[in-house]
């Protein structure tokens, strides 16, 4: 269960947002919408534990996210604008590294097949197109087996087919009791009943 208690963030004497309060339970999706520079990425990074709010606290199952124990951190996965893939390694090597570090159970080959990346598995990430790189980044998300997905505009560079796979994965993830907070500029793509809409 993810909970934010009157979060506020000031950046260099400027208030990004304040008094933000919400709760997200298993199987629920939250959509973060707002113009550029409204603090969506900052909020996501705070929820992932990469940054600290100026006041207020964000907790995961009661524990403050900034000071989570090492093994609890495995429950959170954050994918920002950067793909988190080493350009000189092949897609398969990147996936194996994520699986080794996160200890996820998902089998790499099956995830790649889902994303139609199997033939690109042994090419270096450097030679992939932006869309393929984004799919590979999503593949590492599945491999990590995290319960809470924090995605920052995951649909950038994705074509129709890629978006369909992402929507399908998200709904399956929520169905199995997972949580997700997605910052996006097209909220209607993910909207369905019971979605929490946070407008910054």
């Amino acid at each position, binding site marked *: 269960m993810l909970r934010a208690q009157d979060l506020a963030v000031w950046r260099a004497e400027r208030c990004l947002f304040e*008094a*933000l309060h919400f709760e997200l339970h298993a199987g629920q999706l939250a959509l973060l919408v707002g113009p550029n520079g409204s603090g969506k990425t900052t909020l996501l990074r705070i929820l992932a534990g990469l940054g600290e709010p100026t006041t207020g606290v964000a907790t995961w199952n009661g524990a403050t996210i900034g000071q989570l124990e090492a093994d609890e951190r495995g429950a959170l996965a954050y994918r920002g604008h950067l793909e988190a893939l080493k350009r000189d390694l092949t897609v398969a090597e990147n996936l194996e590294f994520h699986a080794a570090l996160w200890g996820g159970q998902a089998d790499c080959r099956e995830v790649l097949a889902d994303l139609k990346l199997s033939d690109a598995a042994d090419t270096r990430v450097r030679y992939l197109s932006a869309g393929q790189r984004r799919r590979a980044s999503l593949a590492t998300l599945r491999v990590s087996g995290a319960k809470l997905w924090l995605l920052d505009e995951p649909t950038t560079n994705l074509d129709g087919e890629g978006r369909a796979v992402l929507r399908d994965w998200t709904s399956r993830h929520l169905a199995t009791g997972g949580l997700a907070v997605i910052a996006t500029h097209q909220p209607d793509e993910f909207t369905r009943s*019971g979605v*929490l*809409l*946070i*407008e910054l």
Partner: protein
Amino acid sequence: MSEFLSMGGDGAYVWSAYGITLATLIINAWLVRVKRGHALRRARELATQTEAPRKQPKVHRVQ
């Protein structure tokens, strides 16, 4: 008096050493004064600006 100034022939060293130390102290004292002056003046300028708009995000559940 001149004997005191000559410091047994090493006057140049003694006085230059004291001179440098005095210079350091004076420079620092002056730097502090300037820095405080700027800071206070800037604070007063800032005080005249208007208040930033409240930024409370709206959170609601889609039915």
